């Protein structure tokens, strides 16, 4: 399905010169009420790459996103995001870092007392204080990107689940962040709406080269992303020939019982010998 482009600055997103990776987890542990959710997680997300996180419910996928944002501290280990060690930062210093990161929450987490335009403009309003014409224009651009320009004056309660998820994406990308975190963006949605959202995520990956971490339960979404590329000329997805699957910056990370059991690209995933993973992806 063709979709409009986002006429923002389409240069490569800001990447910290001092950092080799957008995200780096080193031996991260966390437990909740004696239940050890993450048991020494280590992985790296290179700049410009999208990494899909898999695991059964309760395996700590959403926790990884919240840890990366500094919304909760780990019990031990080190987390570096855009070159900054979030485990050593004070809450008030984290706010500046979070300004460079976009997050799409599982249930959208839109502010229900604000209109769609106010939700999308939230970050810009916080920066500039007043709702100017420039902000209005950028809000419309972001909403056009997710094909929801007509909802500008509606409240979140008036939107469907899929529309809310797309507004959440618009809110996350309006400042063109260096890093995007998606928490089950297609969870509970119908296949058509899911495809639209995956297309938006791919467009962000292939056109704006944004690094992202994608938590999902839908393997087909991640496989679609691994074997397709967003064609900016035609505004559609283009299937890659079999030999070029690794040309797109896409990788997979699978969690089991609080540990990483797989971290690699689609070719490595297809050739894995691990019985659990083979059963998981079959």
């Amino acid at each position, binding site marked *: 399905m063709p979709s409009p482009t986002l006429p923002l600055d389409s240069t490569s997103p800001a990447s910290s010169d001092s950092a080799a990776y957008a995200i780096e987890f080193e031996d991260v542990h966390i437990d909740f009420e004696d239940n050890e959710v993450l048991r020494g997680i280590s992985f790296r997300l290179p700049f410009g790459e999208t990494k899909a996180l898999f695991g059964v419910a309760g395996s700590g996928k959403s926790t990884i996103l*919240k840890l990366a*944002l500094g*919304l909760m501290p780990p019990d031990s280990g080190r987390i570096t995001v855009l070159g900054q060690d979030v485990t050593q930062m004070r*809450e*008030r210093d984290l*706010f*500046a870092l*979070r*300004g460079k*990161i976009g*997050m799409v*929450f*599982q*249930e959208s*987490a*839109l*502010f*229900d007392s604000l209109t769609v335009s106010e939700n999308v403009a*939230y*970050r810009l309003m*916080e920066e500039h204080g007043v709702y100017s014409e420039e902000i209005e224009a950028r809000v419309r651009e972001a909403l056009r990107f997710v094909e929801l320009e007509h909802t500008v004056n509606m409240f979140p309660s008036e939107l469907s689940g899929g529309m809310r998820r797309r507004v959440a994406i618009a*809110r996350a990308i309006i400042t063109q962040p260096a890093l995007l975190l998606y928490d089950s963006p297609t969870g509970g949605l119908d296949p058509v709406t899911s495809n639209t959202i995956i297309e938006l995520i791919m467009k962000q990956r292939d056109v704006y080269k944004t690094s992202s971490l994608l938590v999902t339960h839908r393997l087909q979404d991640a496989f679609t992303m691994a074997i397709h590329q967003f064609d900016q000329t035609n505004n559609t997805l283009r299937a890659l020939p079999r030999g070029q699957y690794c040309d797109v910056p896409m990788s997979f990370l699978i969690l089991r019982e609080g540990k990483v059991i797989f971290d690699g690209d689609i070719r490595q995933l297809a050739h894995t010998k691990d019985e659990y993973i083979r059963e998981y992806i079959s």
Partner: protein
Amino acid sequence: MELTSPMEFAKQKVQAVQDYTFLAAQSLGNLFRKPFYFADMVRQADLIGVGSLPIVVLTGFFTGAVLAVQSANTLQRFGSIALIGQLVALSMVRELGPVLTGLMVAGRNASGMASELGSMVVTEQIDAMRALGTDPMKKLVTPRIVATVFMLFFLSILSDVVGLTGGSFVSTVLLSLDAHEYWSKAWQSLVFEDVFMGLIKPVLFGFIISTVGCFYGMTARGGTQGVGRATTQAVVAASVLIVVTDLFVTQFLMNVMSYK
């Protein structure tokens, strides 16, 4: 339902007091750190202050009126019915005006804050706010505290005036007393210590109402049921704290100002 051990229960309570103290201290510290969110303060002042006007006016008027009705009977026995203005003025300004206004505003706004913030917590809106680079303590808690303290101060003054008017209404219409005498006795009986005590209390009560409401909201857990529980607890805790604080503040001020 799982039973909690006494030690665990005590730990939870101490933790809650610590968290509450931290929230109150942080919200005060935010008064001196940018951004200040003046627009949010004005919006909250409108919701809390202007929105509470009807209940404060009604409560104040009828409290003053019933105070006059009740005391008239006793004063008449001692032939001191002319002192009714003095009695209503002292009772309203020193005690009933601030306390009843505080309790009314606690019932209306501590519950409102707890339910609004609690709903935002359980729907991840607070996390979203933090993720978008905004400090929810600055954006949501501090404006509510400033607005409640500021507006409760003026609401208490209004309650005092309306209460005196209620007493005046009963004195003139039901007891056929002279209105001029009522007001002059009321005015002459008040000294600086009375007014000071009546004005310091709403500041403390406003702080209690808003911090307790925000604390229960920000710590709400367990979906809609948890929000409901937080709302009830906020009203109960704020009301009890107001009454308890009132006793200690009254005693303290009387000692400090050597006032009887």
